[in-house]
């Protein structure tokens, strides 16, 4: 469904992605793990073309782009296939919750306003914000804002939703409500690629875990394999640091 081939990306002399190959099947929930600076966010942003890869091919559904030759039209078409949920929500500040979700439907997909409105309300109710339609983002908690962000992505009906550390900017007590929403939509069979540090979430929800380090994929596979019997030394080290053995036992 999604196929990345040989994606490379450098910022100046710093090569952040060293030729990534990744395949994601329809309906799969892929979680990308890795230490900071490993290139996981950059990889995600490349799929949405918020970063322009230096080389490689990106295919989503039946649409394929050669990154070295992609023009404005290709980029635009590729972006139409995916939607992004940002770490810092990035809701349109000057628009209400409802307008945030409707914006893409009306302006990009040219949906009639009434249809877009109905669809948006439906999606907002699904993320538990049916009561907040006319609120501005600044009046919402972080968790609520992120749920609007998810609704905005979901409403577009993309082939894949990309989550860039969706809970990293949240207060610990708000993380749960956002993860619950992501879990729920994962069950509906929507393809998702999630960059996260929430190991519990990765274990429960992912069908496919990718561990990245130094701009390359070190290891990937089913969550139970990666978490229980990682093959690579680098993966073992990382998991140990993230999920340390308890220092004491009862």
């Amino acid at each position, binding site marked *: 469904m999604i196929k990345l081939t040989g994606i490379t990306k450098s910022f100046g002399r710093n090569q952040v992605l060293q030729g990534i190959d990744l395949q994601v099947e329809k309906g799969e929930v892929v979680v990308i793990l890795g230490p900071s600076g490993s290139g996981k966010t950059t990889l995600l942003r490349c799929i*949405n*073309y*918020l970063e322009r890869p230096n080389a490689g091919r990106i295919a989503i559904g039946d649409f394929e782009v050669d990154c070295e030759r992609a023009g404005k039209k290709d980029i*635009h078409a590729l*972006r*139409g296939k*995916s*939607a*992004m949920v*940002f770490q*810092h*929500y*990035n*809701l*349109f*500040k*000057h*628009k209400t919750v409802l307008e945030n979700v409707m*914006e*893409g439907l009306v*302006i*990009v*997909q040219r949906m009639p306003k009434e249809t877009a409105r109905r669809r948006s309300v439906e999606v907002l109710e699904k993320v538990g914000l049916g009561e907040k339609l006319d609120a*501005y*983002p*600044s*009046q*919402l*908690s*972080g968790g609520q*804002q992120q749920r609007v962000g998810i609704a*905005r*992505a979901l409403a*577009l009906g993309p082939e894949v939703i990309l989550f860039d550390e969706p809970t990293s900017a949240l207060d610990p007590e708000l993380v749960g409500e956002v993860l619950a929403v992501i879990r729920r939509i994962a069950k509906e069979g929507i393809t998702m690629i999630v960059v996260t540090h929430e190991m519990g979430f990765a274990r429960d929800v992912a069908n496919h875990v990718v561990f990245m380090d130094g701009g390359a994929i070190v290891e990937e596979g089913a969550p139970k394999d990666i978490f229980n019997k990682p093959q690579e030394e680098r993966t073992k080290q990382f998991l140990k640091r993230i999920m340390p053995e308890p220092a004491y036992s009862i």
Partner: protein
Amino acid sequence: MKLDPSFIWEAFVKLLPVIPTTLLITVVSVACGFVIGTAVAFVRIYKVPVLHPIASAYVTFIRGTPMLTHLLIIYFGLPMIIDAVSAQLGLGFRSASIPMIDFAFLAFSITAGGYMSEVVRSGLLTVNRGQIEAAYSVGMTTPQAIRRIVFPQAMAASIPNLANSFIGMLHASTLAFTVSVVEIFAKAQIVASTNWKFFEAYLAAAVIFWGLTVLIERVAVILEKRMNLYNRGGVA
């Protein structure tokens, strides 16, 4: 010297009819200046090839020279060009038929454009990069993202500075008197020239300018409140 309070009032009443002239010069130059300034700001932010250095040169020249020189350069230079071109093409058009106030409109628009480009640019820079990324992520093109997401937020953030520019241009419009446009300041001189009570006439002019300025300030406050409604929660 003795102050003649009754003449202040008399001058005040005589100045009222030319307020529209002052306002017209101000509004035209601010409106055109805003269009020029917005174009220049985008050219500079997006570093448009060829136009970018021209835009930078324009801004430094305009801000580096007094507004009076812009007016006089246009006033003396433009007719020469127009008449030369007109003669070349064999048109009967003569620059003398151009109303004086048009020179003020043109010169002040150019001045305002230079200053306002920086107002617009600073407004655009206040908008977080994440906003345009979000617009791209829902599939918008760059023009759509700018028109629907970035520009409205930039404008809301720019209102205090735009009001400042507006007030500045209102006061600077007095320079039009040098090219024989009868606006408030020129009228004050005319009113006083019959009896030499310049002080009273200028006081009356000052009161009118102050009144107009207060009005602009009020409008700006209302606009600012309305356009920044979305910031009222103050969380993000």
